[in-house]
């Protein structure tokens, strides 16, 4: 009997913990969306298919053009001595 009572107690605490975690995640996402006011933005200069970020992790500034570091292979090859 005592075992069953303890089992139910542990079960309840686990339910509360997991549900609390889920609820907290939902509310944090909503609070973040409220602060940023836009949930997801992608621009033509910086489409997000390569590295999509959802759930409000993006904002407009992250997507503004000219901020993405890129690798220009032609530029690298121009300055590289390929013949050794």
């Amino acid at each position, binding site marked *: 009997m005592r075992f069953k009572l303890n089992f139910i107690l542990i079960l309840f605490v686990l339910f509360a913990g997991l549900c609390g975690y889920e609820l907290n995640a939902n*509310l944090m996402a*909503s609070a973040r969306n409220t602060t940023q006011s*836009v949930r997801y*933005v992608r621009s*033509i200069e910086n489409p997000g*298919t390569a590295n999509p970020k959802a759930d409000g992790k993006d904002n407009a*500034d992250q997507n503004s053009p000219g901020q993405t570091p890129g690798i220009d292979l032609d530029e690298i090859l121009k300055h590289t001595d390929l013949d050794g």
Partner: protein
Amino acid sequence: MSRKRVEQILALASICFLFAAWFAGGVRSKGEILEQIKNISSQIQGVTQIRPQVFEGYRRGNPSEKLYIGIAGHPSYGGLLQVAIVVNSNQTIERVALLQDTDTGTYITKVLGNGVLDAFLGHKTSQFPQVDAVSGATLTSTAMIKGVEKAAASIHGSFQPKEKDAFSKEEVVKAAATLGLFLTAVFISSRFFRWNKKYARLGLLGVSTVILGGLYGAQFSLSSFVLLLSGGWTKGLGSYTSLICLILALLFFFTTRKNLYCAMICPFGGVQEGLGRITRCSPPRKREWMKWSARLFTLFAMGMALYFRNASNATYEPFGMVFSFIGSDALFALTILILLASLFVRRPWCTLFCPVTCVFDFLAFVRSWVPFNREPWNEGRKKEVAS
């Protein structure tokens, strides 16, 4: 002060709390649109509204280069989903943004991760690409695609905002099936049913688990209550089945004075009960503080969801994970825990933590205040007190 009086005061306080949260949420969301446009791009300046849902601005440092911002919404699973597009003077879509959604975060992440919105970038508003809906999140992806199309139509001036999205035939069939389940439950619980009620109840629970849970994925949850209270459904929904299920459950709860939904129809209850029948386990004994903790948790979740105007905020039940396999890691762990625990105690989730049970407890308590609908036990107690 008697216990009943204290409970009455707490019930009134919780109604006031929900109303205050809803009111504060309304104040918070005022003037949000212009702030959202500002955040879509810092390149857009001088934004003015030219038509309903259409704004005009210019590119930073170049006032002659006009940009048009179209905003449109389309009903999704949890309510209205709102998107915005930024179109330049060549009619090319330069930016896409998701402004507002009330769907479960996992669905949104899945659809955005599949590049449904990104697919429109660089295309002209007159030549849309063929974008397919994401399997498993069809309503959310359709809402995004339709939203972009409506936003483009708004910019062109060809969109009719009064156009209503018609009830599909599939929705009508789902609603009829749900009504059929409730009518069967009423018949089984009535005195006209002359056969074995225990097996009939279990049979109906099994059928409901297959139809409402497995086929339709239309089990209502706490977010459905929030959706009903906040009025979010008036802006349109992708699927009305879970809301209809909730309305029927409330209707039959108040007319028959029985919680038929939890006893005979709840699909997740059916799964737990089925597992419990294997081991023939007994229901858990819930202590008083557990009952009140679960109620407080439910009230807090509802209040916050009303404040943020997002019904899916109140979703912490594992229903979506059980029947659609969509949800967070925490919900996955919770589902496994409940299914395992169902082998040791009967209906552990329903008895210990289900928010729907808490809401029905609250409604049963409030129902006893109504003079013509008093519970028999309450009448008896009243007579005792009077004597």
